[in-house]
């Protein structure tokens, strides 16, 4: 366990693992005392220390307030590398561009509640989620175009608007994405899954605004207590998983793992052929996921349009949780171009950054933090301070505290349904096992996770949302 790791307190919500041994930079942990206790239960502090041994890491590596043990890097981990540094697939995760988009609807809460069951049933019927029950069939060439063009591919086919692209991180399309860097196996896996929600911790949720924490920014983000909102949380499906696996294996073959404290930190030097191909393939998976969320949103618009004619369903924003990107950051007064790895972390760019859509550039980007199924979610705004402290990053969600096996032993699907019902949440789920493994109690306290972000200044609270209906794949 991570009890033996020495931590120095920097503030009420920041701790540091000072440099020692093979660390090339310190590790900075964003957590309250309470969340830190959780972190000591698994290997995430040890993994943070291991992250800090990677060549070319800049300033410090970071574990955010929802951090927990992952593959090599902790989930909730951020690390940035200069040109002499590395790219590591474990620093992105298997579910490349697992992310979330949030919609505003202009549909009154009471109107939605009156039709809640039918709407949920129709969404469940329309959006494919289960295995082997994909939707339309696509050709291999179509999938290649999706990998190259991301959300643009969908919009060109009438499955969205240009405004949707403006309100997606990266405009819904990473540029350096060559489908030839993606294996046929990955393509095989992605082909039947385009447009599907997937399962595990992926879900679609209808919500209402429970608490307005920053009225001015709420209004700018289009969040209003009178109307329902929707979150769509999913990633790049089997395509991304295979890309991650392929490149982990490739990098192990080419570079080995003997000099690493943990095999899972396998990496390739920035600028190497392997690194470039991984980035290109990762970008293809990123684009696939953006397009996926765009297509699912389109389906949702169709369904909502059926029940609430005239409803204006808009995209608030779409953010990635698992990605590595080249970004400009200033570190100790020096302008640097860094490869920022965010694994289970959300970009949190503040006012003035050119990457933030024009409509939000004066206030900072929306940061969308879904709670686990059936619990509260949050919207924050990105901050300038995040740029200074965390390479413009903040937490992505609640993070697990209990394993799936434990959950299955202690909780039944009936328990979960009853608790959710009591909380006023209607659920449509594809399987009972999936419900149990995602029960709210197995996750950390999201209120505490976002409070720490706010107090640290890396994401400022805008609104708290509560679920009204959930669809789980």
């Amino acid at each position, binding site marked *: 366990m991570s009890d033996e790791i020495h931590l120095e307190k920097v503030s009420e919500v920041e701790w540091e693992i000072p440099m020692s041994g093979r660390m090339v930079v310190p590790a900075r942990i964003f957590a309250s005392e309470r969340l830190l206790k959780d972190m000591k239960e698994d290997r995430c502090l040890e993994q943070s220390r291991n992250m800090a041994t990677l060549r070319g890491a800049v300033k410090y590596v970071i574990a955010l307030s929802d951090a927990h043990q992952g593959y090599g890097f902790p989930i909730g981990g951020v690390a940035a590398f200069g040109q002499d540094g590395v790219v590591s697939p474990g620093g992105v995760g298997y*579910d490349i561009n697992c992310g979330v988009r949030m919609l505003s609807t202009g549909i009154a809460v009471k109107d939605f509640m009156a039709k809640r069951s039918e709407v949920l049933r129709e969404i469940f019927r329309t959006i494919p989620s289960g295995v082997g029950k994909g939707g339309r069939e696509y050709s291999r060439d179509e999938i290649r175009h999706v990998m190259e063009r991301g959300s643009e591919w969908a919009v060109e086919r009438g499955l969205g608007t240009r405004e949707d692209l403006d309100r997606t991180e990266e405009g819904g399309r990473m540029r350096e994405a060559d489908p030839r860097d993606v294996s046929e196996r990955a393509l*095989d*896996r992605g082909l039947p899954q385009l447009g599907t929600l997937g*399962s*595990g911790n992926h879900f679609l949720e209808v919500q209402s605004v429970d608490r307005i924490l920053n009225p001015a920014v709420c209004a700018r983000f289009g969040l209003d207590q009178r109307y329902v909102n929707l979150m769509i949380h999913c990633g790049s499906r*089997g395509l991304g998983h295979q890309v991650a*696996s392929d490149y982990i294996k490739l990098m192990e073959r080419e570079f080995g793992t003997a000099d690493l404290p943990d095999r899972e930190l396998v990496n390739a030097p920035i600028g190497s052929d392997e690194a470039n191909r991984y980035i290109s393939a990762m970008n293809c998976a990123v684009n696939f996921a953006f397009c996926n969320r765009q297509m699912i949103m389109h389906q949702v618009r169709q369904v909502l349009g059926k029940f609430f004619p005239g409803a204006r369903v808009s995209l608030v924003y779409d953010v990635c949780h698992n990605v590595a990107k080249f970004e400009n950051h200033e570190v100790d007064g020096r302008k640097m171009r860094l490869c920022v790895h965010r694994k289970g972390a959300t970009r949190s760019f503040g006012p003035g950054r050119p990457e933030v859509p024009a409509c939000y550039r004066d206030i900072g980007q929306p940061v969308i933090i879904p709670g686990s199924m059936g619990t509260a979610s949050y919207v924050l705004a990105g901050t300038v301070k995040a740029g200074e402290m965390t390479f413009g990053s903040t937490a992505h969600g609640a993070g697990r505290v209990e394993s*799936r096996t434990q959950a299955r032993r202690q909780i039944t699907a009936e328990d979960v349904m009853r608790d959710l019902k009591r909380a006023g949440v209607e659920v449509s789920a594809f*399987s009972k096992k999936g419900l149990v493994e995602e029960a709210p109690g197995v996750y950390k306290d999201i209120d505490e996770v976002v409070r720490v972000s706010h107090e640290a200044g890396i994401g400022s609270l805008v609104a708290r949302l509560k679920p009204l209906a959930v669809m789980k794949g």
Partner: protein
Amino acid sequence: MSYEFLPHTADVKIRAKGPDLESVFMESAHALREAICGETRVSAVAGRTIEVEGCDTHALLYNFLEEFLYLLDAESFLLSRVTSLRIGKDLLAAEIEGDSAAKYEFSNSVKAVTYNDMKIEQSGDGWIAEFVLDV
């Protein structure tokens, strides 16, 4: 059952046991099947042969298990059981039986096999394998 699920916060950790290396690989696949679809009984309707390569036993196990995720995603094939398995030099061949995934109600959360904490070793009279699935 010759496998069990071990505690692990975010992912799924499995320990499989068998009298020899081949059987431990087979039980690992059966454990993966349970991680994918729970205790759903899957009919052995269709059979096929799979072959994977790997430079050592860890790589063989990784690639063998990954093949089931591939078959599930790409061909909607859900494993019922592994009926036979042979491990040669850098190569593994297995006969498997399963069914169309579309016929079953389950929700797969397994994203990948990983090398995290992977162990394949002799233990007492037999062999054990341990591995973690990313979910």
